[in-house]
């Protein structure tokens, strides 16, 4: 039985994870993920890859929207910028893939300085609309700058070869995504428990008080944009690699909404929530497929043409029901479970 929260040193107080069971389970999870590419078939593996890439992107958005409270309706803009930065650098100018990945972070980060600038004046949805505008404007810009981006034709990208390792194989590519997703998770967790992360959250919860605490609102809002765009851009490059083809069409606006959905379903403002949300949203189509598969024989007979619509209706329904019963997201559910455990039968 764990006895509670008695810490011997201040170092323990600031530790990322303070309980051995959590370490244990994390280790098990990591081992499972490392083993995954060897046991999964290529379809399941591609699902895993997409989830890892999406989780990276969601963690990026989480910094901006979850931590700092700046709603972005156009995050796909950073995703597509990152993908193009990589494609242009590596496929067009034959740079080293590592430089490509770096560029995929840096270019959107630079763009985010422009997008973030209005955040000094605009709040909430008014700011959100400028991010939305950005994602449309960036699409137009990419289509117009044919000399650099091939315009509407898009750019084909090959999976990279780095440090003598080819990431062409599905397993290798999954490892790459796994590594980046894990790094991102640790990075965002560390940011959250540092001075910077507290500043972000302070801005979200009460910007006047934050300023009185000595937080430079302008700088930190921009910093949130830059950090978020950097991570999202890298996710964009991975996504482009996954698609093997970078084009404006491959990054539909709906991705922005889906990313927000992931955060909310996971539990806004929590890195763990972003990851859990990605898993839930990523596997939901699979789940609806399985549920409908149980009735597939009857369904095919009943609805020769509407089966797919039923499936997406079911998808929407599951999201609504989930939020109805777990409005604070998966992280909320997790806390409830834990608290009921701790407080059981009742602790005062």
């Amino acid at each position, binding site marked *: 039985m764990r006895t509670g929260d008695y810490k011997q040193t201040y170092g323990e107080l600031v530790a990322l994870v303070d309980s051995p069971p959590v370490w244990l389970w994390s280790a098990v999870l990591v081992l499972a993920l490392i083993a995954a590419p060897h046991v999964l078939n290529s379809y399941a593996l591609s699902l895993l890859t997409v989830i890892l890439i999406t989780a990276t992107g969601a963690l990026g958005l989480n910094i901006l929207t979850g931590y700092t409270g700046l709603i972005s309706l156009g995050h796909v803009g950073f995703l597509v910028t990152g993908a193009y930065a990589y494609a242009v650098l590596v496929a067009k100018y034959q740079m080293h893939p590592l430089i490509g990945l770096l560029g995929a972070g840096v270019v959107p980060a630079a763009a985010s300085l422009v997008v973030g600038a209005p955040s000094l004046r605009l709040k909430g949805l008014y700011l959100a609309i400028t991010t939305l505008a950005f994602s449309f404007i960036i699409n137009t810009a990419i289509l117009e700058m044919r000399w650099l981006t091939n315009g509407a034709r898009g750019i084909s990208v090959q999976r990279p070869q780095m440090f003598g390792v080819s990431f062409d194989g599905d397993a290798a590519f999954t490892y790459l995504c796994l590594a980046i997703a894990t790094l991102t998770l640790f990075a965002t967790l560390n940011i959250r428990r540092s001075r910077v992360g507290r500043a972000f959250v302070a801005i979200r919860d009460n910007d006047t008080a934050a300023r009185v605490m000595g937080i430079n609102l302008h700088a930190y809002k921009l910093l949130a944009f830059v950090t978020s765009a950097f991570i999202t851009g890298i996710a964009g490059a991975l996504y482009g690699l996954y698609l093997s083809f970078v084009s404006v069409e491959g990054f539909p606006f709906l991705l922005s909404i889906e990313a927000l959905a992931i955060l909310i379903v996971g539990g806004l403002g929590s890195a763990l929530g972003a990851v859990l949300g990605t898993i839930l949203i990523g596997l939901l189509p699979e789940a609806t497929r399985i549920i409908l598969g149980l009735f597939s024989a009857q369904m095919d007979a009943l609805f020769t043409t509407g089966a797919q619509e039923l499936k997406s209706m079911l998808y929407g329904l599951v999201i609504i029901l989930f939020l109805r019963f777990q409005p604070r997201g998966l992280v909320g559910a997790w806390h409830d479970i834990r*608290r*009921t455990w701790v*407080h059981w039968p*009742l*602790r*005062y």
Partner: protein
Amino acid sequence: MPTTLPTSTHAAATPQAVPERDCLLEFRNIRILYDNAIEAIRDVSIAVPDGGIVALLGSNGAGKSTLLKAMSGILYTEEGVIENGSIRFRGEDVHHLGPDELVRRGIVQVPEGRRVFAALTIDENLQMGGYTRTNAEARERRDRVFALFPRLHERRDQIAGYMSGGEQQMLAIGRALMTDPALLALDEPSLGLAPLIIDRIYEVIVRLRDELKMTVLLVEQNAQRALDIADYGYILETGRVVLDGPSKKLVANEDVQEFYLGISASGRKSLRDVKHYKRRKRWLS
């Protein structure tokens, strides 16, 4: 056997004590949980007699506001539930009723921190207070509120959010009076108000009781003021009633004097001379 069972359970469910005839509101053995885990109110019974002022005192976090929220039926908005006990209004169990129904029956509260509708004008705020009443009734009440608080009349077209704290408090009370309540609950009405204004507000409270025969449940930190006008008082500590009695008797209680009125055996002492912050209250030991 099967035929007797229902009657016996029914008999058991009926409370033993028939409500006192002149008791307008009564909390009976109330227990309240937040988030299914935090017990804010443990086992509280409070009776508010018709036409009187009852003061509810207690330190921060004692659960005073929680009781009022329960009374108004808005606990659910904060994940709070009444686990046990009942709230009776005019002898009838009301704790399952919705907030709008409670207002219609005559229970209204002025919430902690005033909470005026910031973007609405003073007139519109008052209009919202009279939401459950007909237009004619509302007009009549509004005139009465304006008579009570002439200042509101002066600034009736102003946006409420930009008024000073005292004006907002007046508005919040005025708005509650618009519902024409039988029971008016005030959650710390003197919070953040200048002494002069507090005087005025307390005058109004007394007038409401004396002239309109309104029953008042007064949650207050300023024990001196509250006990001055109240007929009866309850002291709440960590979710339990630790002391109650007619206010005269409470004022005379040594503990109350020391902890709530700041008077020790040697008279009122200066705050400069307070030495220790943490003392145990006698009724807790």
